[in-house]
């Protein structure tokens, strides 16, 4: 990349960031409107409880500002956000950002690990499958890949619980988020409680990714440049790893990068099943309990991540593929 290229790329990035602002505003407006239009009440649990009569619930709604029209609430929310204030959760009365901060480590630990494992598994499996298509290995890999991405995580999760927790009693299915890893024993406990959720998620993601790597490799294997490389007398290993793989990785890298934001938002179903206090679990609970500030914060952060990773991917393209120019 020459200096001219760098300047072009700089301009491109700035332009994209400027475009991102109205996009994000639009997204936040839509989410807010949807939340405001969906009826719900943070105190719905007390609705049939005579000790919390309607007047009291009304007073609480007023104190939470829920009785203003939705567009006023939206601008209040946006104004506070500009000052860096994400608001406080109705259910816990603490700043939303604190809640998210409490949960991020668990999510990154479990979901992030599953993601890394699935990348580490999918790339080699995909390569071998593509190099030896329809071999026994490929058939097994394909079968697992199909099982992986066609069986929903709530099913594999329950299946693993029934086998390993209920029948064999090897692994716990209640995630202990207060466990502190201080020695080998507690480390082993941490590993034990992470095995099942990580497996469930990794199985699902590996399945999808393997198919992708395989397809991309298959596409590049019959290309002219591959034949040239072989004709030069390079050994097969170098041909595959240096020539075919590098080119095949361009779409795969996109897919992987675009998947990164989903790590931060957690896995709603898996977190629920194993009681992991991750962000996905927080999101679904907050939706159920009409805890608008929390839902807004999580979805908005997710939107920001998606937009920025799209940009990162586009920039990454230029690095991976010199043919792409930003003009």
């Amino acid at each position: 990349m020459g200096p001219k290229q760098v300047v072009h790329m700089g301009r491109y990035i700035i332009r994209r960031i400027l475009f991102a602002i109205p996009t994000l505003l639009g997204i936040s407006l839509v989410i807010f409107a949807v939340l405001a239009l969906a009826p719900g009440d943070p105190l719905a649990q007390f609705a049939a409880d005579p000790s919390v009569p309607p007047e009291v619930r009304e007073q609480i709604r007023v104190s939470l500002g829920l009785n203003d029209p939705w567009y006023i609430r939206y601008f209040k929310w946006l104004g506070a956000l500009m000052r860096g204030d994400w608001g406080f959760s109705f259910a816990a009365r603490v700043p939303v950002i604190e809640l998210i901060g409490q949960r991020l480590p668990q999510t990154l630990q479990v979901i992030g690990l599953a993601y890394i494992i699935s990348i580490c598994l999918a790339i080699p499996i995909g390569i071998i499958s593509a190099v030896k298509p329809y071999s026994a290995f490929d058939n097994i890999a394909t079968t697992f890949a199909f099982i992986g991405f066609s069986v929903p995580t709530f099913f594999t999760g329950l299946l693993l619980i029934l086998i390993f927790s209920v029948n064999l009693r090897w692994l716990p299915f209640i995630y202990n988020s207060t466990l502190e890893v201080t020695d080998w024993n507690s480390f082993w406990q941490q590993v034990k409680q992470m095995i099942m959720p990580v497996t469930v998620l990794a199985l699902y993601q590996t399945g999808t990714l393997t198919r992708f790597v395989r397809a991309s490799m298959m596409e590049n294997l019959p290309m002219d440049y591959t034949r040239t490389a072989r004709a030069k007398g390079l050994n097969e290993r170098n041909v595959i790893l240096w020539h075919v793989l590098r080119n095949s990785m361009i779409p795969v890298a996109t897919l992987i990068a675009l998947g990164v934001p989903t790590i931060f938002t957690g896995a709603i179903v898996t977190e629920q099943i194993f009681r992991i206090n991750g962000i996905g679990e927080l999101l679904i609970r907050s939706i159920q309990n009409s805890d608008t500030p929390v839902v807004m914060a999580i979805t908005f952060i997710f939107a920001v991540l998606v937009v920025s990773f799209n940009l990162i991917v586009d920039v990454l393209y230029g690095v991976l593929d010199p043919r792409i120019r930003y003009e």
Partner: protein
Amino acid sequence: MYRKRLLTWLLATLVLTMVLAACGSAPPAQAPTSEPPAAQATTPPSTEATMAPPAETPTEAPTEAPAATGRGAGDVLRILYWQAPTILNTHLAVGTKDWDASRLILEPLASIGPDGKLVAELVTEIPTVENGGIAEDLTSITWKLRDDIKWSDGSDLTAADVVFTYEYCADETTACTTASAFDGIASVEAVDDYTVKITWEAPNANSYKTFTSNSGRIIQKAQFESCIGAAASTDAACQAANLAPIGTGPYKLVDFRVGDTVLYDINEFYRDPDKPFFQRVEIKGGGDAPSAARAVFQTGETDWAWNLQVEAAVLQQLINQGGQGVLVPYNTANVERILINFTNVDPELGEERGQLSQPHPFLTDLAVRQALALSIDRRAISEQLYGPTGFPTCSLLWYEPFASGPDDFFGDCEQDIDAANALLDEAGWELGADGVRVKDGIRLSVIFQTSVNSLRQKTQELIKANWEAIGVETELKSVDAGVFFGSDVGNPDNIGHFFADIQMYTTGASEPDPTSHLCQWVSEQASQSENEWRGQNNMRWQNAEYDALCAELRAETDPDRQVEIALAMDALISSDVSMIPLVARPRVAGASNALRGYNPSGWDSELWDVANWYKE
């Protein structure tokens, strides 16, 4: 080629076997050492057998603590709530789970035991008219605090803290969930350091409504002093205090992961030197009720599981297969009931929809209401769907002191399709060609709504079949629970608007005194657009006799006479069929086989007596 196919097939078979192995009724693989058979023998053999008077059956008397116990003799008590606690200041709670999680820390002046009687916690005795604690004319009550109670930070609990708790919630802008417990108070004053006097605005027959049970937890003045008003939720120091209140209870907070886990340690200043038994308590939240049941009955990962609202068949199977725990049902006043709409909610009426000026076209006919009630098979609903978590009832007040149990009434409301048909025939409702009864061009066709909940949907199905047998067309509707029980004005699908003919949900008195519960349905409480559909009488039932009884009940001070009036009101509900009680719903928890000493109360927090719990 063959080999490859073979491999694939082998693999597929392997996976299939795994699936089958998991789904099939696997033997109750016992953990090798965890379960000495003797432990099982001491537990109640079957939950069904213990159901009839379910209140305290599975527990031993909480007072007889065995010699082996003592403060901190036990290790960890693990409690599982499928709804996670989110705040520990009870006055700002958003659900029962918050009341329960905070009960280990914050205490009321007196708890209410399973029998509806008060148990002194922070006071020397329960005030009564006889001991002079309650004024003869019922205008005041005086509580005498114990002088040896310390907060978990070592400071003394004094009358100032109690007065402060009142001031905290008396301010409307604090927006306490518990505000109604502080209604009707003229003043709360500290007579001396250990004496608190509440003066009522008017003579109050329900003297114990303040500073008792869930709504009456005392918070520390020093900690919350600057938190009155909006600051309660917005000020950073108050937010921190809400999550970590200092209390007088058996435990103090160690760590609170909001919406996930609460960890507690013994409060070394707790008043009883021999209690609590467990060094630590861990309340884990999240997941769902069936998997919580699995954790306590099958894997034994938890010692106590809250509110196991699981379908009877599934629950029974988990208990039988598991062998790790027992079911602990305990009575509440909750009754699943059908409510009948007395106004016309036809959408074509526009603004007039559901207003009192628009009587319902056919549900105002007593014969129709009686027929609807007569045709329901409560027994089938209760036995097939609720199992140990419910029993059929014909009355809202089936519990002590109003009745000795639901059996008192049974027989009054057995299903009788023939009688129901006869009633409708007599009233002139004739069966049409399509199997639906008609009179003067009006078809007996109802919309029946409830919240989304598999138990409720199955109940709806059974009732629909019953009603169609008497020629009443029934259309079922289910609304998401958050919406159904939500209270915002623009929400047409909630129980307040009641834009359907029939609806069904559970509610019940939350305190032993049924007045506030029964008086919800007086005529002037009808939910209308004028009160933004927040009147509690959402049936819009108008009955002058009932209104008069309510007024009489509010003024009555003689307990025996109160019971009589309450029963008369209940009888009126049954005879005028404004509501149809279906199933009395005990709350159901699960306890590990080794856990002892629990005595959950339907009038207070499930964990109110956690200081008495121990393990053998």
